[in-house]
Structures are given as C-alpha cells and as structure tokens.
C-alpha cells in the first residue's frame, strides 16, 4: 500500500507534535519510523490510521483515510492493547473482535501467535503484564494482515526471547504476505536487519527518509593506530570514538571519496560499517540547545 503525506500537522493545544510533514512511502516494505521520545511518531501514525482528523493530507493508495471506510479497512495501528480491547476483555475476546470486524483477519494465525508468544486466551487484558500486552498487540497487528500495518513500540516490556520470536514472526509473515509495515522502535539495532527503509523524524519534522543500506553507507567506522586514526579523521564529522590502548575506533559520518579510501589503506586503517543506531543518534542530536 502506498502512503502519501502532504503538509501534515498535528497539534495538541499549543504543542505541535507533527509540523507540516510531507513524505511518501512506495509500499510493500518494512519501514522503520525512528525518533526520540516526543518526536511525533505516535501522532504521525495516529493520523495515518485515521485515529485523528489530519490537518493536511494523508492518502493511502490515493484515498484519504479519515472516515473513509474502504481505506480504514486496509489499516491497522497498534499503539498498545488498550486501543484494540478493553481492559476487562479476555484475550479470546480481542481475537473475536478482530475476527468479527476485520475482513482480512487470519484467526488461525492469531491463535498460532498467541501460543508462540505465550499469551493465555483466558487472561483478561488488564491482567496481562506490560510485555504480554505488547505481545498481544503484535498478535492483533500481524493477524490483521492489513495492507498497512503499523506497530508503535510493540517491543515495550517484552523479554529478549519474546522479542526475538516477534522479529522472526514479523519477517516470516512479511515474506509470506508482503505488505507495508511501519515499525517505530527505540531498539534500533535489534530491528535494523529487518528494516528496508528508514524514516527519521525529530521535533515533529522529517529529518531523513532513506533506504536502510544507503543510510548505513553514510557512516564508516575507522579502526587502527590512534595517531593514524586522528590524522585520518581530521576535518571529518566524527560521531564518536573508542580507545583501547594504542588502538582507536572512530565513527565518521559522510561518504568517503576515493582519495580518502586510498589514504586509509596507506595508513593501514580498517574501515567498516557503523550501527544505524549511532547514525540515528547523530542525526537527531541537539545542536546549540536545539535539535
């Protein structure tokens, strides 16, 4: 499903959560929506899901989403469980809601996921732990099989084995049923290998939209003798440094040209990719007290 956002603004009183944002997603990819706390991720996804009336334009496959029944059928946003179920509802009721109200719902898959993620069907939603509630959100999101599925920090509270089971289920389901999936997360490195494209927002504005591999190529980790590394990185944008004895590793932002690559080889420096998470931190770093 294609997503087109044009001049989107979301305000809460005097606070502007999303500020005149415009971008397009071509669809059928796993997108990472990255941003610091309060950057506007949830507000943006809420507008994409028709949870709130947008100021600006939000189009899904060319159709406005807000109060458009045909478009709403194609979207599933899971912010956490309280949207998709009441706290007094049993988990089995949540699946019944999905089965009753969603044409694309796959109940057999939902049952499989609840079993995989260790959620009892008889437990009330309000009695689930934070991690179990998040896992139930993943069940609702993936089993909806919605052409636009959005998972907002669905990892919150999950233990490591459950998170890994979630990532495996996400990838397998995407391979079997390709669709547009948008995931917001703070555990960027854990999900980095799944993300095909990254949208970074900060203070309600779009910072960058890039293929994940292209973004990774924008940064390089330079490792070698400390003095050689210092000489090589002089004049470059250094995101961070680590030293161990005489060995130093520096993270450099920006594409290296041929002459720089030759010089690195001459100095015997090792060049490698840097983590998406480090690039994200750099790109959203406050500058002069402002981001």
């Amino acid at each position: 499903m294609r997503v087109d956002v044009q001049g989107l603004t979301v305000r809460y009183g005097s606070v502007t959560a999303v500020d005149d944002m415009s971008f397009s997603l071509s669809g059928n990819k796993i997108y990472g929506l990255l941003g610091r706390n309060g950057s506007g991720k949830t507000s943006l996804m809420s507008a994409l899901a028709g949870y709130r009336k947008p100021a600006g334009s939000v189009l899904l496959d060319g159709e406005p989403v807000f109060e458009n029944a045909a478009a709403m059928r194609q979207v599933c946003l899971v912010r956490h469980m309280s949207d998709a179920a009441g706290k007094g509802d049993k988990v089995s009721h949540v699946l019944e809601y999905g089965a009753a109200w969603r044409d694309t719902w796959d109940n057999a898959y939902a049952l499989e996921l609840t079993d995989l993620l260790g959620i009892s069907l008889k437990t009330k939603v309000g009695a689930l732990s934070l991690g179990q509630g998040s896992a139930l959100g993943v069940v609702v999101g993936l089993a909806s099989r919605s052409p636009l599925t959005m998972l907002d920090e669905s990892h919150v509270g999950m233990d490591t084995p459950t998170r890994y089971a979630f990532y495996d289920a996400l990838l397998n389901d995407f391979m079997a049923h390709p669709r547009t999936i948008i995931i917001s997360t703070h555990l960027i490195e854990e999900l980095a290998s799944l993300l095909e494209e990254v949208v970074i927002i900060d203070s309600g504005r779009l910072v960058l939209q890039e293929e994940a591999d292209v973004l990774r190529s924008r940064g390089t980790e330079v490792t070698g003798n400390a003095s050689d590394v210092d000489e090589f990185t002089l004049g470059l944008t250094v995101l961070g440094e680590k030293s161990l004895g005489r060995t130093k590793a520096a993270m450099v932002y920006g594409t290296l040209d041929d002459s720089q690559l030759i010089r690195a080889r001459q100095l015997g420096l090792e060049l490698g990719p840097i983590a998406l998470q480090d690039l994200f931190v750099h790109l959203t770093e406050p500058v002069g007290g402002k981001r």
Partner: protein
Amino acid sequence: MKVFRHLTTTLVAYGAIVAACVFLAVLAATFTLSLFADIVFSGWMMVSVQIARWFVLWVGVYVIHNVLPIAIAHGRTRREFLAAATGFSAVFAVAMSVLAWLGFLVEDSVYDVMGWRNHPHGSLLAYTLMFAVWCGVGMFVTAAFDRWGYGGALTLPVGLALVAVPGITMPGTDDLPVFRDAPELLGEGWHVVSVFAWMITMALTWAVARAMPVRTRT
C-alpha cells in the same frame, strides 16, 4: 451491521442477566421487608425507574468510551459505529423496557397472591423512550468528555435537560418541577416530545463524536 450485531448481542444479553439478578434481589428484599412492615409500593418500579435508567446511561457511556475506540482500532469508521450505536440505543431501550415489563408481570402476580398493595407503572412506550433518551445522553456526554476533556462538563446541563423529558410522566419519578402541567396538557402527545429528545441526543452524539480523536490511554 457487524458493529450493530456485536453491540446488540453482547449488551442486551448482559442487560438481561443484570435485570434478572436485580429482580430476584428485589423480590427477596420485598419478602424480607414484608416480615416487618406492610408492602405498599412496588420495589421493581423503583428499580426499573430510578436505578435502571442509570444502568442504561452507563451502557451509553460504555459504548462510546470503550467500544468506539476498539471499533476504530479494528478498521471501522466513526460514521459506521455511530449508525450502529443509534440503532443499538433504540433496540436496547426496547429490550430493557420489555424486561421491565416482564418483571412487572411476575411482580404483579406475586403481589396479588400475597395481598400486597401495588402502584401503577408506566407504559411500555414510556419506558422505551426513557431508556432510549438516557442511553443517548450517556453517549453524548461521554463523547463530549472524551473529545474535550473537562470541557465536556459544559454539556451536562444539556444532558440533564434531555433526560428530564421522558421521565416526567413516569410513575416513580419527580422530574421537571417547574413545568409540572405541561405533560398533562399534552397527554400522550408528550411521548412525541420524548422521541424528539432522543433524536436530539443522537444528533448531538453524532456531532461531537464524528471527528473525535482516539487518544492514547494508559
């Protein structure tokens, strides 16, 4: 239709279970009371008027506050939901008034057998309209609070005015102290006023909830 079916089947069934339990409790309380005093009023009438309408109002609150966000989260529009909720408020009101009447049938028989004095009770239509308006006001006021937070309190006077309308002619209530003569002047035509009150509650609910955001809950 799916939303309507869900609301109707779950909440009418729930209402029936609650009504049956309350009826048995009232009957038990009446028998207990009869050991110490003469029974001179209908316990079920007091419950069906004074308590049942608050239960119906709570159902209206529940429908908008709890079920509407769930429906949107499962891909339904507010328009679809509100259409279903409007139909539901009417069906639920009919169901609750039928339950109230079934209670009166049983209670009247018991009172006859026991030789207890009873009071007249409102008509099926009067109960239906009272429940419909109270359910609608529950939806309207809740939509206002959910949309505007504490600003929703501004709708309370409107809600109070609307719920007063259908209760005026109902035995067991003392609504509308200022215009006491109005219902007598209009006679059965007062029900038309009640129908308008219900239509106003639903129109107001639509107006408020049509663009209501689904907020993040904790």
